[in-house]
């Protein structure tokens, strides 16, 4: 069992927390868990409750859509230093895609319910976390739109 101190150190190593006030990070570490997934292991499934929010330490995961009659359609692959799982912050708190580990993947995960409770109590912490989270979401949306332009299609 990794203690909160150890988890705080692991969180501090992740680029998402660069420059974050130590007290905030320690508070968040109280909701954290150290996890690892084997290659091919499903981390999340579309429609299932989104209970956790993940920071990749090492490894790679794929974000996939389930397309009836096909294997998973991979939307994006994520790697060391990336984060995934925003569904914990938006009702109805359900995953909107599948997540699969592509290789041995080590992550720190935060419990969504625990986080929501802490953010409701401490709005400054909520602002701090959302300020870091929103640019990641915006960038991902921007890139998804780049993908939709079908840049390499035959003219």
């Amino acid at each position: 069992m990794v203690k909160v101190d150890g988890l705080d150190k692991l969180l501090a190593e992740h680029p998402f927390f660069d420059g974050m006030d130590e007290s905030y990070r320690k508070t968040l570490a109280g909701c954290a868990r150290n996890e690892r997934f084997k290659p091919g292991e499903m981390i999340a499934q579309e429609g299932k409750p989104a209970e956790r929010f993940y920071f990749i330490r090492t490894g790679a995961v794929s974000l996939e859509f389930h397309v009836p009659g096909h294997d998973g359609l991979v939307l994006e692959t994520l790697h060391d230093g990336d984060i995934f799982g925003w569904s914990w912050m938006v009702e109805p708190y359900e995953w909107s895609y599948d997540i699969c580990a592509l290789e041995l993947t080590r992550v720190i995960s935060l419990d969504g319910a625990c986080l929501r409770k802490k953010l409701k109590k401490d709005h400054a912490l909520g602002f701090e976390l959302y300020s870091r989270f929103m640019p990641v979401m915006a960038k991902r949306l921007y890139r998804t739109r780049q993908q939709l332009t079908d840049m390499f299609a035959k003219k």
Partner: protein
Amino acid sequence: MPDQTTSDAPYADPMVPDLLPITLRRKELDDTFTIELDPGKPGFHFQPGQFNMLYVFGVGEVPISISGDPANPGKLVHTIRNVGAVTDALSKLKKGDQVGVRGPFGSAWPVIEADGHDVVIIAGGIGLAPLRPAIEHVLANREHFGRFVILYGARSPEDVLYMKQLQQWRGRLDTYVDVTVDHADRSWAGNVGVVPRLIERADFDPHHTKVMICGPEIMMRFTIKELVQRGMEKDDIFVSMERNMKCAIGHCGHCQFGGKFICKDGPVFAYSQIEDLLQVRGL
């Protein structure tokens, strides 16, 4: 190819094509193929990034980048995507058939200026073909350069050009290669996502690097944005532009790009030279 053996001293008459036989034809992708031509003696000298005009008599002429090894002037290589009447006619030619060739034309990748720097090659789709001579040059003179990074994006795994060669380059300890595709199913073990995404993970010194980019203009625009955010100077970013080139010597005006001609002033430009033009919508 008499009188056309160096890029510094090209043709006696640049409008007269030489007839060169196809020595090899290879399918690359469903819509993309490579032809190798025998330039005869003393070979065909070119600089990485330059292009030739390929003529199919009775059909027309198209500009095609040279995609072979500049250190091997005995083999004139072009990788071509079948997108129109002339490229379709080229796709139907067989070994032994002849192609009219004018060239080499245009500006080159800054492989000499890159000496002593990190080099980052970023290609999208068939844009890897015009960059391959630069890659060959760097690999053949590896000790002259710092970190060497090749980033490549394609539409899908089936559209990845030069797959075997990418794997060979990736196998070298002195070269970092990363490939991504826009769409894939689970059978693809590589990255999925846009090319700029690869830039974040690549290790190079933005203040001591030359970047060479070729691909669809929209891909180059997103890529440049990422590089500038990473701290790159606009003078150190080079792009290859594509326009409808007809005469290849700046006379006809078909490829005019603002005050420049792509055929004569380009196709390779420093981003700082054309930044304003790239912002003009519809140009």
